[in-house]
């Protein structure tokens, strides 16, 4: 056990840190979504120019080929430096990896480079109104037509859909087999008539997500990933990619917010309030346990080569800590915490989704019970 970085690891961290210092794009412009998006796209281009966009991607596909630990260092440093997310985040962490893992050579040729360069933005079409936790029950249908597939159905919670070129779409291609088996994974062109995107307002008043309606949208055969009928398996791999390595940078985000919270409390002269002190200490322990849990999980993944199911614990921890942290902030603000324009109030409302998005806490507990503890499956 040794939490210090080796000299190689330290050199990598220093390289990242220096690069981030030299290239930090600043807080970015205020303004509407499209202004913000252009800012993030420029940022990703800059990252890509210096070989940081695909930090986790193998070199042969234009990535940096960083090790798991290096990826963790990179994401943590990004979070610590408070740089923006790259514009094509879903392409980088899901779309690219799924094409690399399950795509054929011509798909790799076609799709990978524009992901890195942010020329083509990606979004994810898994969730549907009727199938949230129960992904395999999805109803969007793809029917075979000449040269491809005709897709009809509705997806929801689709981040970035309105600016995306490609959608990672899972649809039912065979209704006559058990529900996990009839699914296929497509890369669907969003720029066509059969695709309609509507913004989905959240309780915060923002539209971070979209609903996407497919009405006989066309997907050519060459955009099937992993073969017809293998959609479930391909999608599950993608979802696991979503989890891996994000724990450590999420912990950095929490830690940043906790620092800001302590400062806010002190500024208001509440730093000696015994109840606030207890709650801050609990958050500190939670935040540190999250950071350390992510490192333990990473160490084990480096050793064994496979991401363990304990990623579900990290996601659960993160959501619950973030909810407690932002609620504490609005509590400390008193009636100011009721104000719509208060950043902490926004964060508190936004945090209510943390126990739903990317796996509800209930589903995470099921996963832990079944896959970590080995308890019998709920029938």
């Amino acid at each position, binding site marked *: 056990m040794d939490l210090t970085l080796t000299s190689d690891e330290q050199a990598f961290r220093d390289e990242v840190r220096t690069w981030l210092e030299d290239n930090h794009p600043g807080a970015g412009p205020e303004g509407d979504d499209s202004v913000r998006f252009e800012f993030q796209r420029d940022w990703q281009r800059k990252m890509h120019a210096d070989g940081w966009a695909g930090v986790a991607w193998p070199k042969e596909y234009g990535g940096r080929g960083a090790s798991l630990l290096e990826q963790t260092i990179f994401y943590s440093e990004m979070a610590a430096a408070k740089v923006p997310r790259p514009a094509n985040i879903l392409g980088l962490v899901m779309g690219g990896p799924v094409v690399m893992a399950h795509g054929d050579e011509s798909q790799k040729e076609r799709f990978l480079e524009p992901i890195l360069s942010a020329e083509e933005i990606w979004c994810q079409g898994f969730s549907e109104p009727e199938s949230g936790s129960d992904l395999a*029950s999805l109803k969007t249908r793809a029917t075979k037509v000449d040269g491809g597939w005709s897709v009809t159905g509705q997806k929801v919670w689709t981040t970035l859909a309105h600016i995306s070129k490609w959608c990672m779409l899972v649809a039912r291609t065979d209704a006559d087999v058990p529900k996990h088996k009839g699914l296929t994974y497509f890369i669907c062109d969003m720029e066509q008539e059969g695709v309609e995107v509507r913004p989905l307002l959240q309780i915060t008043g923002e539209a971070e997500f979209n609903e996407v309606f497919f009405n006989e949208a066309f997907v050519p055969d060459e955009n099937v990933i992993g073969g017809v009928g293998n959609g479930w398996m391909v999608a599950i791999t993608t979802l696991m990619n979503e989890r891996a390595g994000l724990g450590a940078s999420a912990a950095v985000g929490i830690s940043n917010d906790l620092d800001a919270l302590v400062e806010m409390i002190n500024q208001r002269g509440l730093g000696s309030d015994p109840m606030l002190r207890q709650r801050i200490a609990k958050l500190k322990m939670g935040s540190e346990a999250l950071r350390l849990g992510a490192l333990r999980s990473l160490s084990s993944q480096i050793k064994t080569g496979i991401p363990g199911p304990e990623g579900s614990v990290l996601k659960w921890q993160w959501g619950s800590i973030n909810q407690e942290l932002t609620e504490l902030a609005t509590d400390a603000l008193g009636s100011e915490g009721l104000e719509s324009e208060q950043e902490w109030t926004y964060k508190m*409302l936004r945090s209510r989704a943390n126990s739903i998005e990317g796996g509800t806490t209930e589903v995470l507990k099921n996963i832990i019970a079944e896959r970590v503890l080995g308890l019998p499956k709920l029938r």
Partner: protein
Amino acid sequence: MNFGLNDEQQEIKSTAKQFLESRFKPDVVRELAEEGRYDDALWQEICDLGWPGIAIAEENGGQGLGMVELAILCEELGYACAPIPFLSNAAAGLMIEAAGDEKQRARWLPGIASGEARGAAAMERGKEAVIVPDAEGAAVLVLPAAEGGVLVEPSEAEFERLDLLDTTRGYYRVSASGGDPLGSGHEGAQRAMVALAAELTGLAQRALDMSVAYAKEREQFDRPIGAYQAVSHALARMLYDVEEARSLTYYAAWAADAEPDSLPLAAAMAKARASEAAWDVTKAAIQAHGGIGFTWEHDLHFLLKRARADGQMFGPASEHRERIAGMVGMA
């Protein structure tokens, strides 16, 4: 001994529920909340029903019923999440009736009881610039003062509309100096806290009912989600919270009229418990609904946000608990 509603109270409750259900349909509430306004015609209807004066003495132009009856109305208004300038007016009435002299009562209570000259009360104690719900359009403001409260006419006050997360009610920051002082004592504020606790109980009950309905209907993995203990036990916990809030609230409402010595403790308990219950239950309701509960298009967030704002009025639960500890003898 009967700790249940009597026939007349039951009648008030079901009439109110029915009326509010027909008038404050979800799309009406949504429209008003999104535009941050009230519907004058609906307010007029409620005035015609005599609700604003329900707990005001007959001699002051009211119906002469009690806190229990007012709590029933507040619970149902909370249940409906009704955008209506009811609560602040009722609080003003309670405070003036409790601590006003004969002249003050005669001057203001008839208008408050009929709703024709509304009052508005600060829902905080002992602060300077205070938040007053529904201050705009009120004929008289009840603001906190060192000892009890003070009556201020709108022309003597400055106010600014606040942009709070709860848009089902208008909130204003009011500052004023001088005014016509009420007598001392906190009884009026304590009664107003009970009314607020009743509203919170109603909000929580609504969130629970919506969640139960959703859990029966929504299916995942081939069964209704309400058949999973992860969901059903969370709903059971919501019931637990709502029932505790309701017991303490109605006890406080009863004590206000029948056992005034018990009111300070009872009101603090009701407010603290109902604040917490409504907040916990509305949060849990969003969780039970999953993604859809997090959307603007679903109605839950109006309940959540109002629960948050109500919970803050007259101070958060922790402040009341601190006082409760003193009242039970911790020293």
